[in-house]
């Protein structure tokens, strides 16, 4: 059997270009990694991380378990296309071996086996005819669903889908044509030479009866040409379009399991994450900038696209609440917020080295104790929280060192969120030194923004960092705080930085239940809404912030609770614009419930 025909050239050229570009990209990204990351990879390879990665590749790159969780039909659409195509290749390979044994067959021989084997095989193996047709039918059902999704995405659990670029649309068209053209080519082959299963065989018979041999002979070669061209076109488009995710998710899973992560500075590792984005658009629906404000060009999918093609603008990079709702839903698990942060860092102003020289020698703290309390700028703007914390400390008999009651230095996170990472580190160094100087062992803060930066960026070994919700819960459990329970009904708003940011959901709820009855809002915990006042966004204006806060307040009010509770001073101020004094900080309701 010979394995060459002119029509295979588009396929061979396409596949060659694709593999060359892929190899070139991956090798240059790996070479660009810092030495420490390379060490992590080398150390990780002989460990169980490799096995875990293989399992994750099967789960996520072939079966797409996480997309099934978003919506079963959406999951089936993607799995039928991806896993179906994979099985077509794998079973096709086995079929060739079953017919030809150990004979060497080049790549195009496998792909176009039906063409090369036409009329040369005496005994068809019925199993393969059936299996290959079944798989093709499954893939075609996926293509049909993909077409249907273009018309009605809502039926598949997506309110909105991605608006694709022209390049992506071209690649998409090639992909959509691959399988119908394969069906046509194989059916025509079956019509002339026999064979084929329930799908290609039956269509082949029908074609044979209606068109006649002469017409079919004329259609035979062109049909294979078209199929080969669709494949070749798709392969050439793949490394430059959204379909780069097909291959890139695999190295990403391995690198992630070897503990590589994007950092606050851009690195070539980021390319693995950026190009693993399939632009599925699952991140669009959770975005409140979309649902409340109708902003349609800043969501993570568009941010990653703009960054990948070097057309990222400052207004897109900065227009994000960084609430993390999209990150929680991303089926690829891309660190969307970190990538946006390091893009902002790369686009920042040139920092002034003399900046913040005025911090030197500053110390306005007061009191002494092993427990330090850092109010943070926002708590200083909500004095009720500060007073409540004072009463709680007093009632629990805690000696407290007040870090910034008389005005202190910002924690540095707002600056970091604005991309001025280097300058933010000057503040971090100042605050760390201040904490060390006063010898505290526990640091309590009532601001989740400060909490997150203390936990993620500060080097505070030996100092336990607690959010006031955790600290109060601990006081209650240790019996140091006596509260009169059963007072009123409360609903709780999870602040983004505390919930999705630091994973603290239970402590505040525990505290609320010690005081009264908790009534959950529709979106809660990992799915909670953002208040809209996030420091991460420097683009939206006041009325837009208010609109987001109003929708959040409406949802919290819908629970029918008497009081809205939150544990972030910024969220409190945002909700207070729509709910006046019905919103209170966690510490306030605790302080009111203290029994003397």
């Amino acid at each position, binding site marked *: 059997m010979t394995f060459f025909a002119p029509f295979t050239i588009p396929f061979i050229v396409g596949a060659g270009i694709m593999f060359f570009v892929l190899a070139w990209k991956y090798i240059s990204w790996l070479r660009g990694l810092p030495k420490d990351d390379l060490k992590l990879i080398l150390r990780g390879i002989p460990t169980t991380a490799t096995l875990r990665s293989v399992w994750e590749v099967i789960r996520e790159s072939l079966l797409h378990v996480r997309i099934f969780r978003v919506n079963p039909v959406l999951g089936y659409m993607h799995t039928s296309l991806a896993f179906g195509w994979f099985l077509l290749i794998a079973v096709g390979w086995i079929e060739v071996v079953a017919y030809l044994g150990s004979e060497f067959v080049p790549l195009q021989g496998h792909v176009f086996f039906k063409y090369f084997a036409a009329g040369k095989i005496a005994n068809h193996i019925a199993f393969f005819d059936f299996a290959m047709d079944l798989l093709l039918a499954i893939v075609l059902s996926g293509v049909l669903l993909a077409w249907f999704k273009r018309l009605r995405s809502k039926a598949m659990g997506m309110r909105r889908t991605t608006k694709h670029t022209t390049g992506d649309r071209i690649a998409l068209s090639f992909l959509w044509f691959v399988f119908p053209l394969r069906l046509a080519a194989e059916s025509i082959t079956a019509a002339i030479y026999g064979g084929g299963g329930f799908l290609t065989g039956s269509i082949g018979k029908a074609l044979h009866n209606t068109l006649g041999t002469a017409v079919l002979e004329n259609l035979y070669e062109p049909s294979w040409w078209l199929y080969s061209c669709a494949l070749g076109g798709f392969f050439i488009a793949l490394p430059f379009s959204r379909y780069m995710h097909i291959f890139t998710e695999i190295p990403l899973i391995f690198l992630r399991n070897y503990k590589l992560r994007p950092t606050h500075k851009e690195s070539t590792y980021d390319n693995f994450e950026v190009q693993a984005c399939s632009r599925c658009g699952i991140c669009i629906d959770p975005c409140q900038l979309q649902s409340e404000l109708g902003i349609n060009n800043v969501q993570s999918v568009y941010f990653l696209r703009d960054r990948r093609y070097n057309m990222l603008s400052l207004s897109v990079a900065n227009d994000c609440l960084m609430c993390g709702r999209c990150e929680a839903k991303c089926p690829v698990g891309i660190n969307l917020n970190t990538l946006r942060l390091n893009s902002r860092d790369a686009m920042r102003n040139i920092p002034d080295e003399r900046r913040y020289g*005025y911090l030197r020698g500053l110390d306005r703290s007061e009191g002494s104790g092993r427990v330090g309390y850092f109010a943070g*700028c926002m708590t200083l703007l909500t004095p009720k929280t500060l007073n409540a914390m004072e009463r709680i400390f007093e009632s629990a008999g805690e000696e407290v060192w007040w870090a910034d009651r008389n005005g202190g230095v*910002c924690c540095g996170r*707002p*600056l970091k969120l604005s991309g*001025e990472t280097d300058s933010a580190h000057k503040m971090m160094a100042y605050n760390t030194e201040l904490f060390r100087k006063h010898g505290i062992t526990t640091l309590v803060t009532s601001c989740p923004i400060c909490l997150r930066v203390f936990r993620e960026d500060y080097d505070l070994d030996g100092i336990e960092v607690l959010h006031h919700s955790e600290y109060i819960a601990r006081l209650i459990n240790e019996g140091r705080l006596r509260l009169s329970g059963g007072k009123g009904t409360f609903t709780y708003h999870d602040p983004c930085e505390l919930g999705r940011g630091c994973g603290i959901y239970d402590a505040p709820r525990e505290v609320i239940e010690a005081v009264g009855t908790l009534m959950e809002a529709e979106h809660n915990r990992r799915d909670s809404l953002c208040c809209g006042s996030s420091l991460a966004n420097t*683009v*939206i204006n006041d*009325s837009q912030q208010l609109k987001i806060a109003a929708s959040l307040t409406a949802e919290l009010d819908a629970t029918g609770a008497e009081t809205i509770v939150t544990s972030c001073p910024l969220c409190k101020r945002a909700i207070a614009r729509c709910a006046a004094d019905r919103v209170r900080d966690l510490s306030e309701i605790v302080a009111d419930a203290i029994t003397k």
Partner: protein
Amino acid sequence: MATINFGYSINRPRLIDIDRNNLRKSDEILLEMPELQTCIGCGTCTASCTAGNLTDFNFRKVHTLVRRGEYAGAYEEMNKCMLCGKCRLLCPRGINTRGVVMLIKRKLGDF
């Protein structure tokens, strides 16, 4: 006669001539952040300022000077800001003050 030091001094007379100042940067800033036209100069931003509490940084003053085309030293002065965002929460006109700080720095970084 030797000058007697009474412990205070008189401000040097100072004139801002808007006709002579180059307002191009100022106009660009206004174009990108039109809400700045609603500023009433109340100074709440400065009163609440974290950096202003520790230094003589005065956001209202810097903003006013920049708007009148007095750019000298504005970038260095703006760099004292910690971007903590208290001013934005308190501004009675709801001006995106953090955005203003970043915008002024971006526009005047090369001055």
